[in-house]
C-alpha cells in the first residue's frame, strides 16, 4: 500500500519566517510533487521532481523552493512566509515506470501564516 506522509497536519507561522514542509514516500517513486489547494482554485502545482536533486517549476513557484536530496523525501521551503501563502499543501508521488500517471497523495499540511 502506497504511503505518502507529511511532517505536520497543521502549522502556524509568522510572516517572514522560513518554513519547511517535509514529505516522505515509501514506494520508491521517481516523481514527487508539491501542490497548494485553495477553494475554487483546485490544486495548483508548485514544484515537482523526477529524480534526486532534480526539480522543475510548476505553475506557481514564486516564493517557494524545494529540495530533494534522497529519493524518498521532497521538501518544500518557504523562504520568507507571507500571509498569501496560507493554504493547504499537498504532496504527491508517482512512478512513470508503471505506465500509470496516478499520483498518490499525502494527508496535507494546513499552513496558516499570521
Amino acid at each position, binding site marked *: 500500500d502506497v504511503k505518502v506522509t507529511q511532517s505536520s497536519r497543521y502549522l502556524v507561522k509568522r510572516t517572514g519566517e522560513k518554513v519547511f514542509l517535509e514529505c516522505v514516500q515509501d514506494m520508491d517513486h521517481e516523481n514527487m510533487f508539491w501542490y497548494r489547494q485553495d477553494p*475554487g482554485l*483546485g*490544486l495548483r502545482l508548485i514544484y515537482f521532481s523526477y529524480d534526486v536533486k532534480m526539480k522543475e517549476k510548476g505553475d506557481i513557484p514564486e516564493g517557494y523552493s524545494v529540495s530533494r536530496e534522497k529519493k524518498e523525501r521532497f521538501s518544500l521551503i518557504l523562504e520568507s512566509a507571507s500571509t498569501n501563502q496560507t493554504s493547504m499543501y499537498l504532496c504527491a508521488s508517482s512512478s512513470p515506470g508503471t505506465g*500509470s*500517471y496516478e*499520483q498518490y497523495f*499525502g494527508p*496535507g499540511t494546513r499552513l496558516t501564516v499570521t
Partner: protein
Amino acid sequence: AQRVTQPEKLLSVFKGAPVELKCNYSYSGSPELFWYVQYSRQRLQLLLRHISRESIKGFTADLNKGETSFHLKKPFAQEEDSAMYYCALSPNAGNMLTFGGGTRLMVKP
C-alpha cells in the same frame, strides 16, 4: 498550455437521483483524463481514469474529444458519494497533472 474547467463549485442532489459532474478541458494533443475524489477527512485519491474505461463505485466518465469534455456520471447517487471531486488532465506522455477547480457534491437524504 492545458486548462481544466469544472463549471460547478457545488452540486446538490437527493439520494437516488442521477448526478453529473461536468469537466471541460483545453489541450491541443491527446490527453489522459482522470477524476480524483476527496472524502471528508481523507486524502485525495484516484477515482477513475478514462483510459481504463472502468466503472468505480458506480461512476463512469466518457471522454468526448469533440466537445473536449470528461463528465463524471452516476445514475443513482448515494449519501456516501458526498465529497470533493477534481477533474485532472495529464499531457500525452507527461507525468504532470493539471487540476480543475473542483466540485463539491452533496447528496441529501
